[in-house]
């Protein structure tokens, strides 16, 4: 088992003719993911580097796609999300970064009462090792196993997954939820899925400064998850009031510090690693303990 991405995942790449869309369509396919094709309005019917091109997501859905991944530049990314939401894709992964927060407020609100799940924007996507990947997570670093990973950071996910794999610990599914202030799925949404997933025995939570999502996640782990977790929090040395790359990574009004988040995890009985390598070791200890 796994969450979000599995053997039945059939991908439509929105913006398949662009540089990133084109490259990652190929990468996903090479990893074993079923890529139905992609969209580029006005190019429907063409073949782009071996992939069928559709004018709309609805047409890609008719051709079998149930999952969208968005590599469209920021000016078109919101429309791309709406298109996939209207087409009722099961999963929508938005890689694009730099989307205005108010736009995301509306996008997330529009999901109410609709069947789609949205991961991102500004995220690396989802990988179920050995099965399929949707997004840009390098396939080589992951290996199948019992650890679910959920993360606000892309490259940090790679570090942690790589460290886990190096210790011989595989992953059920790794989900990069992205570093924006208003993401689609958040920690709780993802943890809820991991809770129900029989293949996941332990969850790694990778947080960072800004907001209170880590504190809420710690509470959920303590009271609801029913599985052990280990955590990492980036940004202990970040100065207040400065946006650290991610739109959501900012300590404002003295709130959202790494120290608060680490304390919340520890109070919930969740060990916090000081480095990605230490996180992997903590996971290993928990799994064998």
């Amino acid at each position, binding site marked *: 088992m796994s969450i979000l991405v599995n053997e039945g995942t059939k991908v439509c790449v929105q913006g398949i003719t662009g540089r990133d869309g084109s490259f990652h369509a190929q990468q996903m396919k090479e990893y074993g993911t079923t890529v139905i094709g992609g969209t580029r309005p006005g190019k429907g019917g063409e073949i782009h580097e071996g992939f069928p091109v559709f004018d709309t997501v609805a047409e890609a859905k008719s051709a079998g796609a149930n999952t969208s991944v968005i590599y469209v530049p920021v000016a078109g990314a919101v429309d791309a999300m709406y298109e996939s939401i209207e087409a009722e894709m099961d999963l929508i992964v938005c890689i694009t970064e730099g989307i205005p927060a108010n736009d995301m407020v509306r996008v997330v609100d529009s999901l109410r009462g609709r069947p789609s799940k949205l991961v991102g924007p500004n995220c690396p996507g989802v990988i179920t090792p050995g099965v399929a990947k949707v997004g840009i997570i390098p396939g080589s670093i992951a290996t199948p196993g019992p650890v679910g990973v959920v993360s606000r950071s892309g490259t940090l996910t790679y570090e942690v997954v790589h460290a886990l794999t190096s210790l011989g610990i595989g992953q059920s599914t790794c989900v990069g939820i992205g570093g924006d202030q208003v993401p689609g799925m958040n920690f709780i949404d993802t943890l809820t899925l991991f809770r129900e997933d029989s293949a996941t025995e332990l969850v790694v939570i990778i947080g960072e400064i800004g907001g209170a999502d880590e504190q809420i996640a710690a509470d959920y782990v303590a009271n609801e998850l029913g599985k052990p977790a280990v955590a990492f929090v980036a940004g202990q040395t970040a100065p207040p009031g400065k946006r650290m790359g991610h739109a959501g990574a900012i300590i404002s009004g003295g709130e959202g510090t790494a120290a608060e988040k680490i304390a919340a995890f520890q109070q919930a009985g969740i060990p916090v690693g000081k480095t990605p*390598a230490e996180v992997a070791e903590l996971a290993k200890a928990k799994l064998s303990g």
Partner: protein
Amino acid sequence: MKIHEHQAKAIFGDAGIPIPEGRIASSAEEAGRAAAELGPPVAVKSQVLVGGRGKAGGIKIADTVDEAQAHAKAILGMEIKGLPVRKVLIEKTADIDRELYLSIALDRSIRAPLMLGSAMGGVDIEEVAKTQPEAIERVPIDPEFGLRPYTVWGALRRMMGDQDLAKQAVAIAAKLYGIFMDLDCSLVEINPLIVTGDGRVMALDAKINLDDNALFRHPQLEKLRDTDAEDPRERDAKESDLSFVALEGEIGCIVNGAGLAMATMDMVKHAGGEPANFLDVGGSSRPEKVLNAMRIILEDPAVRVILLNIFGGITRCDDIAKGLITAKDELGVEVPIVARLTGTNESDGRALLKSVGLESAATMEEAVGTAVKLAKGASA
């Protein structure tokens, strides 16, 4: 992006939110003329993009035109928290009966806007939130319906304590929400919102923070940018499409990904070093990004070593290596470089670095350890 009080008040005024009559002045003479036009007493308010202007002496009341001119002269010469005061706002003083607080901000936990109101205004609202949370009204706004009178009526009636004042506050809140959505703000704040002696509700101060990601669709707001308040290197980095934050240490960091960049800084600190900066080259791996990153970091004379930490996903290690080599050539780098390259096209990248005599560390831990040792050695 932050904008000045007088700019925010102009937006408030256009939206129909009551504000005191005022004039902007860049010199003591202009300030004097403005005070004469408005008629004293007036407030002379420094326009700088930091809080705590009042405590720093940046806001004064003048009872005469001469006094206004004198205050303006004093304030226009000031620096407040390192920022020069270039303009003052001259404003008719208001007859303040009560000071309250009203704001709308994006709230991450509800993924929607949140209105905050308090009968305790004119003070640090974060302090109130900590010490007297019950003194703050919190109203989540459903983005599908927006802020409608019924949404905020209950909270504002409690806060204003009076039907008529509540009606005025509801109208102001609705306009504030309009500004928040139309201009893609991350915060619109009135602190203090005042009740005058004759029962009018008015914005005595005005603060608007804009969502940087949305500025592309508000070119008229981009023009309001005050570069005084920005670190020139951060501005330079932004123009080069890099995320950069200057710090006080001696280890210059170049990392891909914000989370990894923060984790790298943290690890430097844990290893006994001090990062000189946060720098995320982002997902794209064009070599000139590394070149620009090196250039910006090397402007800081405190930097004693450069730590490059790359985990290639969408980023390709060979591109990074090419950028680093170009930078070495073009910038004449004198400080040592410690590199760690993993992920996409890793072996190509390492080989390229090796060809110019740069060894790559095997792990992040090793790279950080080496960088800290070099920095200490250099400073010893």
